[in-house]
């Protein structure tokens, strides 16, 4: 009963009430909170396609035989190449690549079919614009795939045997290998990081700038209510954003969503607390709103690049991987992808969870101490 009275009369309620009114009236903040999920989802869900397909390709076929046409068909069928035209000679091929009409050129020499018929190794060439390593990787693997396919076909007709070995690949969790399936769950993590650090820290710094923080300290509100009242609204906003993106991810991007949503929401809490700790820390470092924004963006950059949000962490140099281990987002991405895409339970997620909890406790303790000092 006493407990209930204390909760009802807690001075943190008016803070909460006023914070929600302010959020509703602050158009920029409102736009950041509602527009950001939409923009992030479109940008990162649609625009970022890390798989490279349909490279425009020209063909220089000097052989003009059944064998050369069979090879061209196979190359086209890999899906990595789009045959956009034929060229007459190597000069024309070079022009096509230099002008950007083509990113790859398939060269089949005159003696291609003759070599095959005689049982000699026939040579074809795939010229690749490798300025962009990601698309060249796709071209290289596509070229090798086509050659292997033709080899098997030719050998089996010649010798009439089955190939001695075949490796079949089963892509689990994301069978169509869509980058949106990989990216969209990460959007939730990035959004929560932005809300808890950038938006929260600027909101706190604004109170200091306008003198309302000083005014509040003179009232009997007390530090715990002051901090709770200031932070809890952003936790609510974070969960709303998360729910919206989960819904859109399901509707628009057909994210598998195979795991327990309850578990996901529960394991999001330590991540939110850790990120709020960072936001609070930024508010104690920044002297004004502009600085708070700059520091937050500075913090966002490694989060986007090194957490595994877009670029796989296994591909990074070891020091970059270490830095990634200092970011709460890295652990949260393991959790959210594990639950949404793989449907795994807590038994397989306790490691990142424990890391997040440790991070949350450490950073929140530090920032609460620093914050308390700034208001004395």
């Amino acid at each position, binding site marked *: 009963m006493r407990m209930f009275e204390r909760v009802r009369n807690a001075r943190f309620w008016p803070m909460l009430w006023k914070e929600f009114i302010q959020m509703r009236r602050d158009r920029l903040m409102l736009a950041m909170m509602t527009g950001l999920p939409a923009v992030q989802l479109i940008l990162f869900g649609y625009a970022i396609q890390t798989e490279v397909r349909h490279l425009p390709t020209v063909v220089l076929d000097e052989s003009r035989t059944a064998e050369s046409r069979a090879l061209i068909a196979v190359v086209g069928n890999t899906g990595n190449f789009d045959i956009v035209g034929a060229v007459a000679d190597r000069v024309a091929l070079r022009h096509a690549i230099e002008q950007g009409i083509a990113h790859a050129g398939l060269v089949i020499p005159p003696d291609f079919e003759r070599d095959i018929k005689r049982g000699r190794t026939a040579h074809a060439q795939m010229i690749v614009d490798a300025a962009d390593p990601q698309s060249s990787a796709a071209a290289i693997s596509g070229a090798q795939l086509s050659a292997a396919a033709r080899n098997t076909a030719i050998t089996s007709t010649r010798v009439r045997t089955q190939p001695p070995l075949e490796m079949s690949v089963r892509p689990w969790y994301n069978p169509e290998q869509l980058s949106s399936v990989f990216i969209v769950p990460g959007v939730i993590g990035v959004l929560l990081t932005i809300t808890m650090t950038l938006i929260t820290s600027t909101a706190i710094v604004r109170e200091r700038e306008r003198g309302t923080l*000083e*005014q509040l300290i*003179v009232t*009997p509100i007390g530090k715990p209510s002051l901090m709770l009242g200031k932070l809890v609204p952003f936790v609510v906003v974070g969960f709303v954003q998360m729910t919206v993106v989960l819904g859109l991810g399901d509707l628009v991007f057909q994210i598998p969503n195979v795991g327990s949503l309850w578990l996901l929401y529960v394991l999001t809490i330590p991540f939110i607390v850790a990120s709020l700790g960072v936001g609070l820390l930024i508010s104690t470092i920044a002297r004004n709103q502009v600085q708070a924004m700059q520091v937050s963006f500075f913090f966002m950059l490694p989060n986007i690049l090194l957490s595994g949000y877009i670029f796989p962490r296994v591909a990074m140099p070891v020091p970059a991987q270490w830095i990634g281990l200092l970011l709460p987002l890295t652990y949260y991405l393991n959790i959210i992808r594990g639950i949404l895409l793989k449907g795994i339970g807590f038994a397989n997620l306790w490691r990142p969870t424990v890391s997040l909890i440790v991070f949350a406790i450490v950073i929140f303790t530090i920032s609460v101490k620093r914050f308390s000092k700034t208001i004395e």
Partner: protein
Amino acid sequence: MTAVPPEQAKGDAVVTTALRKVFPGGFVAVDHLDLTIHRGEVFGLLGPNGSGKTTTIRMLCGLLKPTGGRAMVVGHDVAIEAEVIRTKIGYMSQKYGLYDDLTVYENLRFYATVYGLHGKNRAAHLEDHMAQIGITDRRNQLAGNLSGGWKQRLALACATAHEPEMLFLDEPTAGVDPAARRAFWKSIYTLAERGTTVLVTTHYMDEAERCQRLAFLSRSHLIAIGTVAEILEHFKQPTIEDVFIELQRRDEGAAA
């Protein structure tokens, strides 16, 4: 010094003894301050910029911890019972501490609730309060759209919604027009008549002369305290403004 009327004699509103504040880096902002403010008094704290006025107010409100000495506010020690003091005082700073994106009523409601007013009691009280300062017509206007004078009135209303025993005003009339200043002082006297003790810092000499008692700070020290007449007598100057200029001249002389 003026005699304290009997109804106000039940303890002083502020008593400081050897109050001292040293900032990190060694700057002594306030040193050896002995100050007594009687209950129900309108007390002015004067001094050139950097003389320690704001630091003193901030220590009395619990915004800064004193480095040494003792300060009692409405009968409680600032070092020990800051929480009790907070429920009994009001504070208005130069920045006003208003939320620009809340309306007049929302600002008042917010501060009243933070001070523990709830329910019907609060609604009725706030209606009265708004009527008194004549801001009822603007209740739905955003505080950010108010003129300087109205902002100042609203800030005073927010700082006094819980009927504090003691009110601290740190340069409350900086940057408002003379009419608004006059109206503001009228409200201060009304508050004082009802028993609220008021401590005000100011640069305006006409305002200083409206205070019942004054204290002059200079270079972190209290150098004079008393009624306007006593101060003028002490410094052998015709007006408070002359005292002020004389003090500033001495400061500069000491610095040179």
